[in-house]
């Protein structure tokens, strides 16, 4: 953090902190709405396709979202928890991303000769894959570790056969505390690499659309 503070010398640190805090709230809100809507849509599709027999796999989410079932009333309870968890996760992720962005923001501000009007002519967002990859990787890795730990704590680790299938993609992962730590580290790496790729593609398309690349 000391490096960031040094790098952001010359820009209004108080304004930067307030802006990051504001964006963290927005990102939390967007993540929450997105997760809740995704759960509602998936549940409704499942209900429409299989009726009373719906929820073979989706219903497993009830382990983490108390009260959630693949029923119309259960959907609302699940959406509520999905909103809470995703909002908190989203806010923390953006806050960490914002903290890591410090140096890049300073560079951007240093280069910005004629600053655009942030209200009437907002600039186009650039993504910093290293920062977003680290923030999201930590959040998703932690989510895997805590959800695995929850399965261990409630005593259902042995019967969690579906969670154990993650070992197909995360070698060494098991439904245990140690397995959860191994899986979290591997998932962090996977998410980090994916985010670096996502940011690279996004920034490239933005460059093409802005005519910066022929």
């Amino acid at each position, binding site marked *: 953090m000391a490096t960031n503070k040094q790098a952001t010398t010359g*820009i209004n640190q108080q304004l930067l902190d307030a802006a990051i805090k*504001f964006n963290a709230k927005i990102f939390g809100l*967007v993540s929450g709405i*997105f997760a809740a809507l995704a759960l509602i849509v998936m549940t409704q599709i499942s209900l429409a396709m299989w009726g009373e027999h719906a929820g073979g796999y989706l219903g497993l989410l009830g382990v983490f979202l108390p009260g959630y079932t693949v029923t119309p009333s259960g959907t609302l309870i699940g959406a509520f928890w999905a909103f809470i968890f995703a909002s908190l996760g989203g806010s923390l992720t953006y806050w960490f991303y914002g903290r890591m962005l410090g140096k890049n923001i300073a560079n951007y501000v240093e280069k910005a000769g004629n*600053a655009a009007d942030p209200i009437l002519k*907002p600039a*186009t*967002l650039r993504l910093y894959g290293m920062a977003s990859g680290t923030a999201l990787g930590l959040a998703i890795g932690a989510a895997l570790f805590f959800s695995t730990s929850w399965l261990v704590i409630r005593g259902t680790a042995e019967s969690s056969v579906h969670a154990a299938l993650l070992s197909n993609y995360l070698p060494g992962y098991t439904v245990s505390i140690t397995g959860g730590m191994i899986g979290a580290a591997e998932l962090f790496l996977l998410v980090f690499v994916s985010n670096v790729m*996502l940011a690279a593609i996004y920034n490239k398309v*933005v460059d093409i659309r802005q005519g910066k690349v022929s």
Partner: protein
Amino acid sequence: MNESSLKDQALLSAVFAKMDVLAMAIATGVLFALGLFAATVVLLLQDVPAGYPVGQHLNELQSYLPGYSVTWAGSIAGLLNGFVIGAIAGFFLALFWNLTHYIALASMLIKTAILAD
């Protein structure tokens, strides 16, 4: 405008920048496509006895994704389906992001105007 104000404005521009909806849709589309393709291929490359069912759980996705199955041909269908789903998710993510910013900024402007009156 002095240098300090310009820097503040540039900082606000950087932090409140709008997301490029098309770029985000393409980027998430590509990532979802590669993700589903890789998830399928990882299962196909595993050493299992002949006739042993592979990817029973991932195969359930064929109920949602036309043409998809845990086979080599299905993995290509997974690429296309993954792209479409990823692009839709990215599109709405960017749209939500921009919309919430516009609403928040508009409410701030209104508050400022009310306070100034």
